[in-house]
């Protein structure tokens, strides 16, 4: 095994020959950057969804009428409370308001802290309303009347709060034209985890029109969706990775070709074949780790500070204008990216390094 002065020397040579590596460094950093940004975005979205889910109860109950979701009423609420193991049932009001001027729907969400005369809007909605001159207040056009409410605050939008208007329950019922005893869905609190599944199975048996979704099922739906998307992306990405590595191998070979003499000099001084391979391995490790860390830091900035322009549209569509991603960095993901990119990179330089090392010393020095 070689010691520190060997590593120092490898670094010194690398600094001298940095131009040789610039090309692979930047291309590779770019490749890692893209894959990291995509994973950052999808992980962040998934996390927001899961956090929102965790704030709800353990089972969500909806009313299914002829393939559509229909409001539920108080009678169900009492009946559901009767089920053993259910601690509490909360009726939720939520729905979509048709903003006809821009032909789009706003998500209307209940925020209990609001008073009867004011609303919060998410950042993107706020921007849009400004265009229609609603700066201080907003008029909901409901059958026969006009409900005017003050815009009290514009809140930052993440994936959940995007495209949303927050109102209190009283106003929500007015805007969505729901009766006082009607609810969009129920949330059941089930303290004992083991009973969630049973309860979810029991409800449709009692009331065939009700749909009961346990939280883990929703969670696993999200997971499936993102695993699926992530997987397709990864497979496509392998194609570009493979082409990069072929490019890299050629590039490295040609660059190494111009370094034949230098390597022969080192060999003549006493570097063995293994030493040369080690030297090149150390140098490439430095390059690849540099690219790896640089790409991760840049994509962190890109996604969480600049909210991923361009890429976010792929995930969320063009309508999503103002959205901030909640920063989520997990070690597992960085480990995955490491294995995905750094290891194949180092694998692809082994053979060119060896070829460089075994050149005939006297021939190469001429």
């Amino acid at each position: 095994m070689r010691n520190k002065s060997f590593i120092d020397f490898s670094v010194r040579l690398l600094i001298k020959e940095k131009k040789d590596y610039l090309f692979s460094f930047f291309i590779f950093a770019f490749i890692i950057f893209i894959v990291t940004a995509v994973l950052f975005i999808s992980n962040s979205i998934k996390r927001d969804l899961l956090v929102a889910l965790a704030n709800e109860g353990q089972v969500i109950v909806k009313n299914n009428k002829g393939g559509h979701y229909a409001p539920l009423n108080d009678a169900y609420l009492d009946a559901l409370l009767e089920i053993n193991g259910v601690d509490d049932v909360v009726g939720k009001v939520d729905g979509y308001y048709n903003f006809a001027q821009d032909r789009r729907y706003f998500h209307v969400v209940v925020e209990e802290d609001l008073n009867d005369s004011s609303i919060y809007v998410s950042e993107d909605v706020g921007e849009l309303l400004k265009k229609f001159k609603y700066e201080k207040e907003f008029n909901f056009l409901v059958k026969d009347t006009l409900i005017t409410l003050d815009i009290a605050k514009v809140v930052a939008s993440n994936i959940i709060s995007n495209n949303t208007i927050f109102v209190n329950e009283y106003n929500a019922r007015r805007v969505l034209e729901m009766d006082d005893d009607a609810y969009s869905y129920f949330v059941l609190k089930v303290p004992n985890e083991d009973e969630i599944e049973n309860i979810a199975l029991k409800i449709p048996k009692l009331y065939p029109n009700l749909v009961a979704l346990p939280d883990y099922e929703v969670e696993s739906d999200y997971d499936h969706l993102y695993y699926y998307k992530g997987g397709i992306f990864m497979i496509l990405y392998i194609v570009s990775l493979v082409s990069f590595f072929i490019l890299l191998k050629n590039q490295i070979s040609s660059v190494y070709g111009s370094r034949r003499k230098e390597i022969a000099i080192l060999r003549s001084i006493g570097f063995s074949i293994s030493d040369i391979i080690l030297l090149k391995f150390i140098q490439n490790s430095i390059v690849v780790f540099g690219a790896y860390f640089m790409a991760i830091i840049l994509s962190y900035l890109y996604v969480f500070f600049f909210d991923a322009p361009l890429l976010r549209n792929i995930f969320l569509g063009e309508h999503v204008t103002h959205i901030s991603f909640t920063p989520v960095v997990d070690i597992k993901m960085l480990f995955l990216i490491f294995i995905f990119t750094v290891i194949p990179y180092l694998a692809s330089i082994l053979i060119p390094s060896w070829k460089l090392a075994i050149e005939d010393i006297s021939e190469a020095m001429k």
Partner: protein
Amino acid sequence: MKPKIAIEHLYKIYNEGKESEFAALKDITLSVGADEIIILKGVSGSGKSTLLSLMAAFSKPSRGTILIDGENISKLPDIFASKFRNKEIGFIFQSFNLIEGLSVSENVRIPLVLEPLEKKEIDQKVEKALQLANIAHKSQQNIADLSGGEKQRCAIARALVNNPSIIFADEPTANLDKENSLKFIEVLEKFKTLKKCVVVATHDSLFDDLPFVSQYINITDGELVL
């Protein structure tokens, strides 16, 4: 006394068995004592460089043995051969073969990075070699900024830094002017006092009839001329 280097029936044949077969060295047998200085004379292409490169284990002979301190270096696995080059041999090349872009002292320290030495020890050894080769005043200069003679002194310092027992020089004066060539001959004499085993391959007439040289050996077309 046992010879330092003993070569027996050495052949180097390129493209053996093919039509283009070419014997660079034929049946060379010679021996060099531990503190002898030997001059290999011959025109370019006569095979003297090939002989040196075989002795330094740069390449492998087609037949025959090269014993150095009793060990057949041409059959050594690469790891051992490299270690041998590193520890026992200092090689001075015609074109100096220094690494451009590095400074003089950085070039001189390269042989030492393979050894488990502290930085301080390395610095001391480098300093000593630079003094010995009379290039210490230029130690921080880049190789590209040196004159031919300075480059050679740097190469000599690199060859000496590991305190090898053997020094090979291949056409050491071919890229030097007369003044620097004469200086090299002084260095050669210094090697004699350091009790090194030295083999110089050259066709330069300046090396003729030097009193401290033990043997002059002529090579023509890959064969020794006695």
